[in-house]
């Protein structure tokens, strides 16, 4: 692929004010808006991330308190005994968040070992979130919104599944082949969006969202036909061969598997790529200002294509950790909500690899603890979704947080 040729449409898009647009420049406005927002998000301070989580938890607590049946009945005689209401509220919130914390870390009261050490469940849930969060993070840094993690996860899992349950290979090699297949599957799906962006200027948000739908329908079609378990009438695949599965990290009592190690390695690799490599420098330059990067002789379109390949590969790996780590067989729901949670994780992690890592662990904790909260404190698991959504809100609306806490333009004080 010749760089200049690829570069052409992107060049057009980059605001050439003199030429009257015979066809509208694909994204002259959108690109600068998007870039600005990405920069805005990336400039977010760690303090903002922490405060966003805290405020979201407080609001979640208020919701828990007011929807608790003890509180509502105590409110019936609020003016007779106001303290009862507050006691009931405190009891509801401390029970719920207590169960959340214990479920996500350590619960001495649980009957089984699995339940006692929830921290491992947290890490299990965090594994695909780390990888898919990295996928979004990496694209963010080049100024692209990869909303398509879901589709890339599905394609990654599908490719990995084909190798994992249709083909027999010796142990060791099999798992490596599964991992590679998953990365390739995700990369192809992400690459489509990158290619279209570079070649035609098609906005990656639209393209990746559409590709999500296509991926879901595609995998459902395959699961009904070529990939269906011959012993089942349901649209599910056969089980992965044992040799294609990630070995468990901590024995049969816990679901935690070697996928976590892959995820940590990916964090290290992406951190190196972004901060230490020439390619990463180009990525960051394009993310900061594509026009300046182009003037400096960088191939913006090549950046778009390669970053979407990498990004898709990371999301594909997330699909592999789901399939070969915990789920064991492919169904059309393999991506669950991971694809969208990945965006939140990347936002919360301020588009930094290690920030994403810790944000993913926090979200893993929400997931593991949320189940325990729902079951042991009888609080709807939707509270977790509310807290997560509030986190997005507070991060995506930094001025709001700044005004609540009177933080003045942290950006200019040096980040």
């Amino acid at each position: 692929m010749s760089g200049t040729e690829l570069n052409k449409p992107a060049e057009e898009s980059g605001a050439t004010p003199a030429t009257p647009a015979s066809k509208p420049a694909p994204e002259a406005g959108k690109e600068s808006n998007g870039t600005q927002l990405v920069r805005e998000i990336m400039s977010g301070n760690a303090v903002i991330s922490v405060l966003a989580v805290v405020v979201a938890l407080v609001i979640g607590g208020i919701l828990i308190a007011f929807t608790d049946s003890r509180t509502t009945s105590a409110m019936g005689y609020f003016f007779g005994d106001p303290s009862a209401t507050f006691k009931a509220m405190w009891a509801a919130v401390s029970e719920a968040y207590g169960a959340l914390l214990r479920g996500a870390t350590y619960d001495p009261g649980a009957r089984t070992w699995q339940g006692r050490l929830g921290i491992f469940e947290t890490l299990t849930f965090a594994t695909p979130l780390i990888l898919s969060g990295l996928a979004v993070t990496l694209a963010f840094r080049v100024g692209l919104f990869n909303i398509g993690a879901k589709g890339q996860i599905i394609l990654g899992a599908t490719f990995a599944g084909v190798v994992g349950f249709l083909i027999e290979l010796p142990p060791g090699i099999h798992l490596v082949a599964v991992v590679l297949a998953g990365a390739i599957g995700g990369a192809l799906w992400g690459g489509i969006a990158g290619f279209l962006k570079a070649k035609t200027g098609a906005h990656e948000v639209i393209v990746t969202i559409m590709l999500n739908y296509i991926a879901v329908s595609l995998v459902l079609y395959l699961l009904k036909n070529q990939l269906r378990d011959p012993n089942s009438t349901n649209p599910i695949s056969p089980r992965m061969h044992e040799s294609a599965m990630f070995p468990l990290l901590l024995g049969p009592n816990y679901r935690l598997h070697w996928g976590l190690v892959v995820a940590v390695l990916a964090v290290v690799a992406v951190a190196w790529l972004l901060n230490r490599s020439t390619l990463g420098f180009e990525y960051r330059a394009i993310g900061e200002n594509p026009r300046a990067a182009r003037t400096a002789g960088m191939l913006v379109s090549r950046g778009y294509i390669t970053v979407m390949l990498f990004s898709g590969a990371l999301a594909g790996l997330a699909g592999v950790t789901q399939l070969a780590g915990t789920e064991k067989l492919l169904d059309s729901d393999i991506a669950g909500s991971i694809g969208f949670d990945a965006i939140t994780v990347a936002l919360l992690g301020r588009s930094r690899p290690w920030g994403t890592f810790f944000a993913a662990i926090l979200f893993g904790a929400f997931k593991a603890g949320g189940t325990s909260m729902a079951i042991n404190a009888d609080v709807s698991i939707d509270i977790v979704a509310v807290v997560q959504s509030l986190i997005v809100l507070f991060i995506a609306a930094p001025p709001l947080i700044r005004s609540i806490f009177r933080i003045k333009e942290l950006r200019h004080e040096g980040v």
Partner: protein
Amino acid sequence: MKNLLLNKVKRGALVGTVTVSAMAMLLTGCGEAPPSSGSGDGTKNAAAADYLGCIVSDSGGFDDQSFNQSSYEGLKKAEADLGIKVKEAQSGATSDFAPNLSQMASAGCNMTLTIGFLLAEATATAAKENPDLHYAIIDDNSIKADNVKPVVYDTAQAAFMAGYTAAATSKTGKVGTFGGINIPTVTIFMDGFAEGVKYFNEKQGKDVKVLGWDVATQQGSFANTFEIVQEGTKISNNLISEGADVIMPVAGPLGKGAGDAVLAANKGGKDVKLVWVDSDGYLTAPAYKSVLLTSVIKTMGEAVETIVSDDLNGKFDPAPYVGTLENGGVALAPFHDLDASVSADTKTQLEEIKKGIIDGSIKVESKSSPK
């Protein structure tokens, strides 16, 4: 995206609850404080107070107006009647099944109900890991274990009666059905329905056609989803425009979509009727009672309550429970508001059919019937 929307709706509901609570506090906050005694109402018996009955839904959730909901209500009834404790978990995705079940085990649930064949894999694993705990799985008969009780329904029997009723009340000579996904728990309804129509044609010398399902090829109209309600409207509109005037949707929440299509068609001058499934739609989906001919009921609530109470009394038995017309596990609902549109003759014939199916003189065959 759909999940996001759903969450938004649920979030809206939460906010609403808060507002309502705050209003309620202002309005009723003047009540008397109760005497501060710690002891609540006495528990029914000591064993029951320590008994934990737990339930894990599939991705439909406990408000699906279908089998998750009926099973959940059965367990809640057991809680009220027997004084047991209840824990519940809704699954948002397939990946939630295993964690939910392991949480239930670690909470020490004596009996865990899992709803739907999708949970079979996770239930089998959990049952193996916790041989001292009991499990019951609804709509799946694939697990053979000493601590798992499969609960299945020969729904074709009741659907046969619904098919007969539909054929007898159809004016266009065409009745229709469609499913969520082409899986046995769905197609068993469609088989029974089509067989019922066939039986009507044989007995009455008529030629009522069934649209949307072919028993011989086991193919028909499917929405390929249990979630997107509008797909139900779309398929129903197609069936109606092809001339069907009785529609039986077998697609969980998509039944609402079908109901909307029927209401709209009737507004446009047609006379289309609806057959609900799983629960008595007259009670669970009252919006459509004006067009609701009857319902094919699976009485899961009762089955669930019985299983829990047996287990509480130490009478757990891993033999599958098969709901039939005979044991009342499946039934045809009353005609309610449309009672007048079913002739007295048809009602008598339906009684005879019911007797015939129970004594075996009428064979209802479906590839999907529990063996």
